[in-house]
């Protein structure tokens, strides 16, 4: 029978109408010593306002550098159950589709070797199993891998790629997010398990600009589905929306971020050249509007939470790329991007920060993507590349030539 602690402070967190992690930990604590001591330790932290966890060190399964995150308690004499409390990350299936059987398997393994506590899912996307001991790691890994699971990424590695539910359930998906996510995960196995880079690198894939996985804010490489050409309008359906009391002016026309839509009382017009494919109008009038037929993705780079410098959102690098099996173009691009970052990055510097420090020009040259207007992030931030010594020599030579011959070339 696990030790029961008095937890008056934590108990407060069971009182609201919302789901309570305290309630869940207590369920585990009734049958698991690790979970029981976790609860006791947390109550102590709440009382003393001090954290008692130590991070990091060599903790993992043989051959892998990622997937296990070492945690130790700094007062193990008092809470022996959490002396070791390592986290295990499991690579989730694309878009988090599970059978109940699969989930039961994971939970059984975790009840056997760990605290029984889980987190579905961590912000990387992985399934997170919370709290186990060093000596259990190889057994956990063996049991998981014999059932087809693998660990996810951690440390300065490629992190487990993740994606939105995409075409599996969503009519707005412009690309097969699930397949692309799976293929990229396979392609970058070495980078995922063996951390060799300056810091972490995350890939997230959304099927459209609604961006249900928040790729634009949470991934070093955000791949977001989009289309080329005109939004398809069914004018009868538009009129139907209006007839049924939908205020098209207020909710659609006035909210279009580029002000490229107009409504004259009977016909909706879109100036598609100025549409930035934000999905707002389509998501408001699903029956009336559909994306154009030529589908692909926009690739943006560099978002991250604040660590070395402040938070960044991803920046458009490739305005439109075809997303077709076997995705060689995207794989090559990701490889080039990470190579450049690995060459130029200092320890703990994310790719977005290196671009800010070293410059967009160097980055674009290395990955072989030409500068283009869509990359301009905001007005007056356009001149992010400069003439090289070589360019200036060329210009001078051209001018000298023109002066000599009197023929000017533009």
């Amino acid at each position, binding site marked *: 029978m696990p030790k029961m602690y008095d937890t008056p402070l934590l108990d407060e967190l069971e009182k609201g109408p919302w789901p309570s992690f305290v309630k869940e930990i207590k369920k585990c604590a009734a049958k698991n010593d690790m979970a029981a001591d976790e609860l006791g330790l947390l109550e102590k932290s709440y009382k003393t306002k001090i954290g008692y966890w130590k991070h990091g060190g060599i903790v993992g399964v043989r051959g892998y550098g990622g997937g296990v995150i070492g945690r130790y308690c700094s007062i193990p004499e008092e809470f022996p159950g959490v002396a070791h409390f390592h986290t295990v990350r499991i690579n989730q299936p694309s878009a988090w589709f599970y059978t109940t059987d699969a989930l039961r398997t994971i939970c059984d393994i975790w009840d056997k070797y760990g605290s029984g506590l889980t987190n579905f899912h961590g912000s990387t996307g992985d399934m997170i199993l919370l709290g186990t001991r060093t000596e259990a790691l190889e057994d956990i890994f063996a049991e998981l891998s014999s059932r087809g699971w693998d660990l996810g990424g951690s440390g300065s590695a490629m992190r487990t790629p993740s994606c939105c539910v995409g075409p599996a359930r969503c009519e707005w998906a412009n690309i097969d997010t699930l397949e692309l996510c799976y293929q990229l995960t396979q392609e970058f196995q070495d980078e995922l398990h063996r951390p060799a880079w300056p810091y972490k690198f995350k890939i997230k894939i959304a099927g459209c600009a609604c961006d249900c996985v928040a790729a634009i804010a949470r991934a070093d490489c955000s791949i977001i589905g989009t289309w080329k050409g005109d939004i398809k309008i069914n004018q009868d359906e538009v009129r139907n929306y209006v007839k049924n009391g939908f205020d098209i002016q207020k909710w659609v026309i006035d909210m279009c971020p580029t002000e490229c839509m107009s409504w004259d009382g009977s016909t909706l017009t879109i100036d598609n050249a100025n549409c930035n494919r934000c999905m707002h109008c389509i998501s408001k009038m699903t029956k009336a509007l559909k994306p154009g037929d030529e589908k692909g993705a926009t690739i943006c780079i560099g978002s991250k939470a604040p660590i070395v410098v402040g938070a960044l959102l991803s920046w458009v690098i490739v305005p439109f790329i075809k997303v077709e099996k076997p995705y060689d173009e995207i794989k090559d691009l990701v490889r080039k991007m990470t190579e450049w970052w*690995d060459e130029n990055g200092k320890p703990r510097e994310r790719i977005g920060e290196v671009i800010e420090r070293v410059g967009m020009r160097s980055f674009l040259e290395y990955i072989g993507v030409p500068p283009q207007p869509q990359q301009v992030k905001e007005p007056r931030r356009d001149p992010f590349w400069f003439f090289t010594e070589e360019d200036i020599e060329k210009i001078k030579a051209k001018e000298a030539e023109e002066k000599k011959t009197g023929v000017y070339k533009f």
Partner: protein
Amino acid sequence: MDTETIKNKIFEILEKAKGKKKLKEKDVIRIASEELNVEKDDVKKVLRDLIEEGKLCYSYTGGASSVEIPSEEYLREKGMIK
């Protein structure tokens, strides 16, 4: 170059750095390949074999990963030595 020499070099580099500097995989590969005048890929292969065998481990501090010689205590905990 024979594998033994590269192995010894890798251990020498990591012993020297122990407690002073965290070396990434890339650093170890670079130093060994310069000092022995061998291809980086050859060093990488030997390094990876050592990691596979559990003679070396990846370690982690504050978000950055490095390569280290595991302590006996750790190997004992993992049941890799008695």
